[in-house]
């Protein structure tokens, strides 16, 4: 009985597919995918906008070239809007993106923006949202499977930091935490404190600083005063340029004791950060295998494109846009719900692997409806049921000569 | 002082920035009188008006109005007691209609307070109707009836002066302080104002204290004259008495007589 029904269903499905296929064939409609970029172009986080914009634009260039090389009629256009770093403006910006036909939305960078955008619009439209916010708070909202995070959540990262410090400084040591007073820093510092203390370590001081400040000398002084064995720095490059300089100016600071969180992970230390503030510093980055061919290819692309310098999370934004594109190709549709349902099919463990260097082949395979495994610039993607990366592998890296050098990989189940 | 004084000022002192504007002035104003306050420029007349109406605070001394001490009282409370003033440079409420200027001055309007406005809108409306009638009548007397709907800012200088006086009278005061009511007003209109003041004094017993430079007006219209110089009261009495006082003549910088300094 059940077998019969199953066969019937299969028939129905096949014929439905045939109808869809013939409809597509009749119109010969190429895939016209619009990816929405929700960028902090103005407002308090406006320094994040330009690199993210460049990363997403690069993804469109790469995707279009791959589609052409693969002979698949698909075109990616980027539509962008300014989230202003503000939940209310982000909501309006997203509405414009939807108005312009976006099927996926890259960004925004903060949890508050992500929550308002999700509750306000993307969930109802089944549009996948790819925020760069890593706060666990984002997981307290019901998202109907529309949130995919290209960055790991804070609770994993704090464990990676604990391991990295244990490996390079030792267990049970005194750590000073310095964080930028924002959801990201606040949440990560809390989970790190819990995890570090659970392993028998002590926190010598926790210093949060307001980013909109003229000087950070007092904060820096407080951090070095306790003479900790290690510093955990949770900060964005813009403020660390100032804070790092202030730390060095205290004369008691040793950058080799620093462990930075993923927002300060870049292939090359940006110009505005004084080299002394990061030389020899350690850091963790989730599933970001530095030194891979894809990583090098991406950095080459970035440099060739000109414009703004590379920054943190650009590879993650880039990969997210590529995933959206591949899912659309796989689904043969730009309908947001259809794309959402295919994301796991293009990041399938065990399926043939592709990177940006073999993206044309990936497109070709995906267009036939076969499962693939896109291994991104920032590593392979294994999404949990809630859309967070399940990978528990973290790179521990060190800045040597201004460049990021991978030291080891830690597993933080 | 006089048993029938509506206003008594004793040893009033006021400093501004180390500058003594009023220096121990004492005088009184009789109920129902028309009294002039005169003196050369810088004598402290306007400061005295500011002190009387609460716009400036005494350093030392006392001011009693209708038996109550009002030194240091806020301007609006003094006004509610029945002592209202006009300003040397007219201060009509330019962005409001002439009628609204008048209605604003109506005393005890329950509609001006949110609780009574919400609880008793009908009473507020009744009070409004009464005030409107009063205002019409006053505007009529001051020749402003046709202007009732105009913005006060559109009035001529003389009309503003009239409106300001009419508005002060609208509060049903017992003592009105007029700071140079004749300045900038054409003589015919000026005479009308003075006639009206005299009539009001007769009808309602309103007291008037006014600052004026035109000595003809002062001498012909005032019952009493108070003379200030350098922050003190140097003379007070009937126009004739004051005119004869040598201290007054000297105060006006040695000029032959007060009249020439108008």
């Amino acid at each position, binding site marked *: 009985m059940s077998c019969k029904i199953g066969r019937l269903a299969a028939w129905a499905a096949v014929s439905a597919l045939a109808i869809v296929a013939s409809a597509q064939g009749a119109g010969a409609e190429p895939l016209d995918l619009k990816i929405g970029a929700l*960028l902090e*172009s*103005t407002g*308090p986080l406006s320094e994040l*906008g330009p690199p993210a914009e460049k990363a997403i634009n690069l993804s469109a260039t790469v995707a279009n070239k791959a589609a052409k090389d693969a002979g698949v009629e698909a075109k990616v256009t980027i539509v*962008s*809007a*300014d989230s202003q770093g*503000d*939940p*209310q403006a982000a*909501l*309006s910006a997203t*509405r*414009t993106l939807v*108005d*312009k036909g976006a099927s996926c939305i890259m960004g925004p960078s903060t*949890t*508050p923006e992500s*929550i*308002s955008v999700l*509750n*306000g*619009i993307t969930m109802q439209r089944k549009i996948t949202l790819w925020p760069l916010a890593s706060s666990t*708070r984002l997981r*307290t909202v019901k998202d109907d499977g529309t949130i995919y995070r290209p960055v790991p959540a804070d609770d994993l990262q704090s464990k990676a930091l604990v391991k990295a410090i244990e490996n390079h400084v030792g267990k049970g040591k005194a750590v000073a935490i310095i964080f930028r*007073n*924002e*959801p990201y820093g*606040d949440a990560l510092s809390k989970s790190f404190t819990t995890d570090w203390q659970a392993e028998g370590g002590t926190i010598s001081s926790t210093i949060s600083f*307001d980013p909109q400040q003229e000087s950070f000398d007092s904060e820096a002084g407080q951090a070095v005063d306790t003479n900790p064995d290690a510093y955990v720095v949770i900060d964005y490059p813009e403020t660390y340029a100032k804070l790092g300089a202030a730390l060095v100016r205290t004369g008691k600071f040793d950058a080799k004791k620093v462990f930075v969180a993923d927002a300060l992970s870049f292939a090359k230390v940006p110009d505005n950060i004084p080299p002394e503030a990061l030389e020899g510093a350690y850091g963790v980055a989730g599933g970001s295998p530095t030194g891979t061919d894809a990583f090098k290819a991406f950095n080459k692309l970035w440099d060739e494109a000109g414009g703004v310098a590379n920054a943190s999370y650009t590879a993650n934004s880039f990969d997210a846009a590529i995933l959206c594109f591949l899912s659309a190709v796989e689904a043969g549709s730009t309908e947001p719900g259809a794309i959402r349902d295919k994301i796991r099919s293009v990041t399938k463990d065990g399926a043939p692997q592709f990177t940006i260097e073999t993206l044309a082949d990936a497109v070709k395979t995906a267009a036939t409806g076969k499962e693939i495994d896109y291994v991104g610039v920032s590593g392979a993607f294994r999404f949990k049921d809630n859309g967070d990366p399940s990978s528990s592998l973290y790179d521990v890296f060190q800045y040597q000569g201004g460049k990021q050098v991978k030291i080891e990989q830690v597993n933080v189940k | 002082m006089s048993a029938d004084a509506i206003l008594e000022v004793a040893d009033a002192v006021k400093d501004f920035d180390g500058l003594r504007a009023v220096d121990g002035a004492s005088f009184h104003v009789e109920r129902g009188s028309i009294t002039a306050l005169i003196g050369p420029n810088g004598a402290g007349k306007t400061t005295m008006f500011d002190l009387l*109406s*609460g*716009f400036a605070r005494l350093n030392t001394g006392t001011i009693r109005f209708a038996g109550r001490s009002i030194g240091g009282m*806020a*301007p*609006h*409370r003094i*006004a509610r007691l029945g002592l*209202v003033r006009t*300003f040397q440079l007219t*201060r009509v*409420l330019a*962005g*409001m209609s002439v009628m609204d200027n008048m*209605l*604003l*001055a109506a*005393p005890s*309007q329950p*509609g*001006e*307070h*949110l609780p009574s406005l919400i609880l008793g809108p009908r009473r*507020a409306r009744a009070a*409004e109707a009464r005030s409107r009638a009063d205002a019409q009548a006053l505007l009529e007397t001051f020749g402003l009836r046709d202007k009732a709907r105009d913005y006060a*800012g559109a009035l001529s200088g003389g009309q503003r002066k009239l409106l300001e006086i009419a*508005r*002060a009278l609208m*509060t049903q005061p017992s003592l009105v302080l007029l700071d140079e009511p004749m300045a900038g007003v054409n003589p015919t209109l000026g005479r009308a104002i003075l006639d009206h003041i005299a009539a009001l004094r007769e009808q309602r017993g309103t007291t008037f204290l006014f600052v004026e430079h035109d000595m003809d007006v002062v001498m012909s219209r005032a019952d009493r004259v108070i003379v200030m110089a350098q922050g003190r009261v140097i003379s007070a009495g009937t126009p004739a008495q004051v005119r004869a006082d040598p201290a007054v003549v000297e105060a006006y910088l040695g000029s032959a007589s007060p009249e020439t300094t108008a």
Partner: protein
Amino acid sequence: MSIDFWINVGVLAGIYGIFTLGLQLNAGFTGLLNFGQAGFMAIGAYTVGILVVDRGWSLWLALPAGIVLAVLAGLFVGIASLRLRSDHFAIATIAFAEIVRYTLQNAAFSGGNQGVLGFDAEWRAVSDWMLPWLATIGLGAYTQLPLFIVVWLAFVALLLMMKGLQATPWGRVLRGIREDEDATAALGKDVFAYKLQSLALAAALAAVAGFFVALNVTYLYPTVFDPTFTFFGYALLVLGGFASYGGVALGSVLFWTLLEGTRLIETSLSAGQQASLRFIIVGVFLLLISRLRPQGLLGNVNEMRVRP
């Protein structure tokens, strides 16, 4: 431009409209340059959020509590700083709003950096009840429409209330204070008490606006309430018209059509440049309106007293 676009513009225009009714009452009718309105709004919104999430209050009971607290804040700010000269008052009120914002960002009771989330279930229930009903007239697909309807009902009701209030003797005293507070005091009016009432009422309106911001954003976070909100409020106030409540509605709709509409312009510029261009347009627009039509579209030039 789709219907969704207009609904969004409408919601924003309604919320900012309610917010700006308070600014109109202060600046347009009382002559008070209140630049702390965003702070009152934050107090109202956060009170609602905290009472619902932490204390389990009903959303509908929390709203009046939020209004009461905002009014108390208005009275406090007024008593502390109403005696300052007008530009100092403006600076003091901005400083107040910023202190509120920093407190919300750093204190434990407000959720700090993590904000307040999960207070809108009761509103969602209402919204879900309205949607099928809207579906019967073919508008069921627009999930923001219920909020639009409620915001505009509230806005129109409050607008009419403020207009009515302005026509009373109470409103006349406020206008008198705007024109010349000394002359009004000389007529026996307690200027300070009226200014205080004006500020407290504006704070109440800000709290209502904050309530709707909370429903719209679904998440309370301090940056929503930064001084830009107040600046935008003044911009649309002057656009619509000085001393005109109808002008607030017109100004709000036009301002948000302009601000959101510029998002839709297709240019070959980069996203960053296009975002900059939007604000350049707003800036130029503020300069032009102050210069060319200082009283605004529906404002009365006679009511715009020239203040030296």
